[in-house]
């Protein structure tokens, strides 16, 4: 059955990479939420979410991005999203996430976006 989910955390300088793996739904979203909260508590404001191995997302998963993004942007940081597979990208697009979040192709692209924008924010 399709229910596994994991978050792998790594650092590239000041940027945190959260690599999501598996299925992000109402059951697994609290683990993603906890991973972001851990970074914020530790004072890290630049977060890249690598969706390369994320095979499913529901609104519970999208809600995690939404509930933290303003706090991070207010603090001068951001969440950059990358490597999104077409099935998951389709769900992002249904709610118009592509105009609200910085969504790029690869992890290096996402990390570079932080140095390209002084505030680290989209737009």
């Amino acid at each position, binding site marked *: 059955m399709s229910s596994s989910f994991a978050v792998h955390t790594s650092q590239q300088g000041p940027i945190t990479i959260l690599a999501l793996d598996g299925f992000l739904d*109402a059951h697994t979203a609290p683990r993603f939420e906890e991973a972001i909260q851990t970074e914020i508590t530790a004072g890290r404001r630049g977060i890249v979410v690598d969706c390369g191995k994320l095979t499913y997302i529901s609104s519970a998963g999208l809600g995690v991005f939404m509930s933290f993004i303003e706090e991070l942007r207010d603090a001068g940081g951001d969440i950059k999203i990358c490597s999104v597979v077409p099935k998951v990208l389709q769900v992002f697009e249904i709610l118009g996430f592509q105009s*609200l979040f910085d969504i790029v192709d690869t992890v290096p692209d996402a990390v570079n976006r932080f140095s390209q924008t002084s505030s680290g924010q989209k737009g």
Partner: protein
Amino acid sequence: MENFERRFLLHVPSSTENLALIRDFVGNIGKQAGFQETELSMIELAVDEACANVIEHAYGLDQTKEVIVRARLDADAITIEVIDTGKGFDPGVVEHKDVKRLMAERRSGGLGMRMMKLVMDEVHYQMIPGERNELKMVKRLRKE
């Protein structure tokens, strides 16, 4: 698909742990109906959203309750009903704030129903006070 009606029924304890099982259940039925991969994903997503709402809001995460998913296939469509006996809601009073505004308010609620309406052809909600709540969704097969 052969031209006769087929019915499927799933009863599961009200736990988010069972969302994967529910997605697999409707996904397999949709596949049998002949839906393409993209449409199957949307059907699974809509049913996941409906059941997550029931588990979290109608039953308040009470795992002793039961979620019922009924599916019906005919030559033209899949019809899925999600049934619960928990707390109902009036879809007319559900706020439909845009995503940007929800973000600004640091809120993420209310996305599930919006998602269902965007990906399915029909969504109907019926509250039968003191008895049950039924959310009915229809996805039609696109014919060449």
